[in-house]
């Protein structure tokens, strides 16, 4: 039994966790932008006011200026303008609450951000400006960034107020979705466990395939359909094979049993044993053919691939089967045969052709005709075998080439009945296409089998 696991290990939860992270980052970025915008505006305003103030003060006469500097040091204005001082050209203190010249400040230079230390106030971050008076003395004014600090704390509070609940909601949502996904996965796990324990009819809940999990379940279900079909097929084949083996084996057994209890010994016994061996050989033929199909289907035989001349193959096979056809009063003829070569296994292609001819001769009645040939069609080579037998019903044409197929018709015909299955396996190994059709128009029915594969060269080399 597989365990569904905790919601924290689900894909959905990890996705939500990621989303929450992105949400937090977005909020942070947003706040930073607001803060940056506000700060620039504040600094601009501060600088503007500082310049106006300075212009106003420097316009005063010297005694008024001194007076104002003293007042500034004590009245409420020092909240806004915490620092003000008068220095001589050598930066020595003349008046005001700045104990030392602010290092780095240029007379008549731009407004600068710096830290000053006004008497009785402690260090403060300010915007400062220095202006040269007409007599050479220098006036320094420093304006605090008090508003800015307020803005900063507001933005930070807003950020916390927004971000924390948003992220919590995102995480809770993720957990809920994960829980739901886990429930569905749990159902699927249980379904899969039932399938694994042998219930191949079971399917995963796929719904209407609206989301990815449903679509995946749908795919798995289609795979299970195919698997179930194949398993049923093999089971059917297994039954068939068991039957095909049991019939001759039963005959063997009966015959041997009768021979054992028979009072006539000698000749009867010999006959019984002879026939028992023939039946056993038939069993072996079925087993050998099955093993051979398996071996070819496993596709390990391409090592023996080489260039094979199909027309020569046709000539060889004609040579081998002509006497048989003649003995059955069937005309075996080579038609439409042109030189064409393919890349393949000569032994297997011979076997393929031999099985096709074997079948054609077997199913063609006396006085009939079997035609064989190899020709080119575009860049392809085509082996064709046509007969004047009963033909293969359209419904059976795909099935006969499948692995282990036995037509009911073939049961009373000698042979293991697996010939066309073997042909199918060899064709698949050669990436060849097999088509089965009527050999000719009515009333001359019959079967035409064409094996089409890529040609390597056409004509004589």
């Amino acid at each position, binding site marked *: 039994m597989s365990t569904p696991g905790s919601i924290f290990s689900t894909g959905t939860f990890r996705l939500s966790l990621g989303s929450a992270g992105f949400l937090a980052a977005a909020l942070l970025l947003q706040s930073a932008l607001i803060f940056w915008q506000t700060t620039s505006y504040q600094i601009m305003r501060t600088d503007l006011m500082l310049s106006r103030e300075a212009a106003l003060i420097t316009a005063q006469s010297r005694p008024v200026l001194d007076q104002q500097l003293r007042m500034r040091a004590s009245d409420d204005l020092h909240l806004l303008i915490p620092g003000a001082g008068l220095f001589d050209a050598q930066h020595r203190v003349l008046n005001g609450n700045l104990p030392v010249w602010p290092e780095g400040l240029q007379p008549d230079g731009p407004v600068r951000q710096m830290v000053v230390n006004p008497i009785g106030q402690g260090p403060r971050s300010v915007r400062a400006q220095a202006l040269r008076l007409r007599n050479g003395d220098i006036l320094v004014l420093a304006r605090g960034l008090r508003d800015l600090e307020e803005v900063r704390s507001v933005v930070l509070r807003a950020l916390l107020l927004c971000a924390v609940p948003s992220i919590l909601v995102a995480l809770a949502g993720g957990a809920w979705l994960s829980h739901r996904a886990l429930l569905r996965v749990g159902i699927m796990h249980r379904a899969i466990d039932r399938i694994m324990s042998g219930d191949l009819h079971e399917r995963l809940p796929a719904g209407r395939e609206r989301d990815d999990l449903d679509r995946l379940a749908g795919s798995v279900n289609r795979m299970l359909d195919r698997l179930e079909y194949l398993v049923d097929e093999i089971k059917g084949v297994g039954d068939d094979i068991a039957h095909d083996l049991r019939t001759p084996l039963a005959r063997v057994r009966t015959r041997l049993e009768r021979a054992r209890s028979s009072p006539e010994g000698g000749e009867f016994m010999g006959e019984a044993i*002879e026939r028992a*061996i023939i039946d056993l*050989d038939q069993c*072996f*033929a079925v087993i*050998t053919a099955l*093993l*051979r199909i398996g*071996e070819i289907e496993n596709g*390990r*035989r391409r*090592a*023996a691939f080489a260039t094979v001349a199909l027309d020569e193959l046709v000539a*060889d096979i004609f*040579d*081998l*089967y002509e*006497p*048989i056809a003649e*003995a059955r009063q069937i005309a075996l003829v080579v038609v439409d045969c042109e030189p064409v070569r393919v890349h393949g296994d000569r*032994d297997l292609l*011979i*076997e393929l052709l*031999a*099985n096709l001819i*074997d079948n054609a*001769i*077997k199913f063609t009645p006396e006085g009939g005709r079997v035609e064989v040939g190899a020709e080119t069609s575009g860049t392809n080579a085509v082996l064709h075998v046509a007969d004047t037998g009963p033909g293969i019903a359209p419904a059976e044409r795909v099935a006969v080439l499948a692995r282990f197929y036995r037509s009911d018709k073939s049961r009373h015909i*000698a*042979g*293991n009945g697996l*010939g066309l299955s073997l042909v199918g396996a060899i064709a698949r190994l050669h990436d060849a296409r097999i088509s089965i059709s009527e050999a000719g128009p009515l009333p001359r029915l019959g079967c035409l089998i064409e094996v089409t594969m890529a040609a390597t060269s056409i004509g004589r080399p």
Partner: protein
Amino acid sequence: MPRMTGPQVLLIEDDGKLALDVAEDLGVRDFVVTVVGTGPEGLERATSGNFDVLVVDRMLPGLDGLALIEQLRRQGSRTPVLVLSALSAVDDRISGLKAGGDDYLTKPFALAELAARLEALLRRPIEARESVLHVGPIVMDLIDGTVLRGNRLIELLPREFRLLEYLLRRPDCILTRDMLLEDVWHYRFIPQTNLVDVHIGKLRRKVDAPGEAPLIHSIRGAGFMLRISN
């Protein structure tokens, strides 16, 4: 009781029951059979003993059958070897022959098939010195392709000529259907119809005319034989 003059066979096979059956059957057929059950023992006996032919199972405990043959060949032994295998794969057969085996037989096999193949390994086919095969009453000219039985000219198709030539080179030797398919037609598959019988039948009608002593015989449960001895 086998005659001590029969050909000496060393059977290296780990399936004891099968080995016993094979040994008894070959014994009846005038072979003198020694059975060993493991690879190393087999190699030792093959090297020390004086055997005419070896039958080696592919899968043996201790030392694989093919490795055994390779080792034997490296030691310079030229004793013919027949490989037995439960594997049907054709590639397997090729690797068996490559390792130095002279013939290959897949289990299950007919005892008659094994005996026929051993016989064939023991007897070298007749070489034609003057490109004329003269066997019994038959004279086959390999150059101009004519065949005479006594004074009667036998007209043969090329495939019939090839088949008869194969038979003439192995007189008084049982030739199985599989051997003929493999050696005359070079086919390694077992056809579903009695192809070989039909070919032999056609050839026999031409070679053994009515009134003549039959040369080509069917051997029940085994195959065919061109018999010239009495």
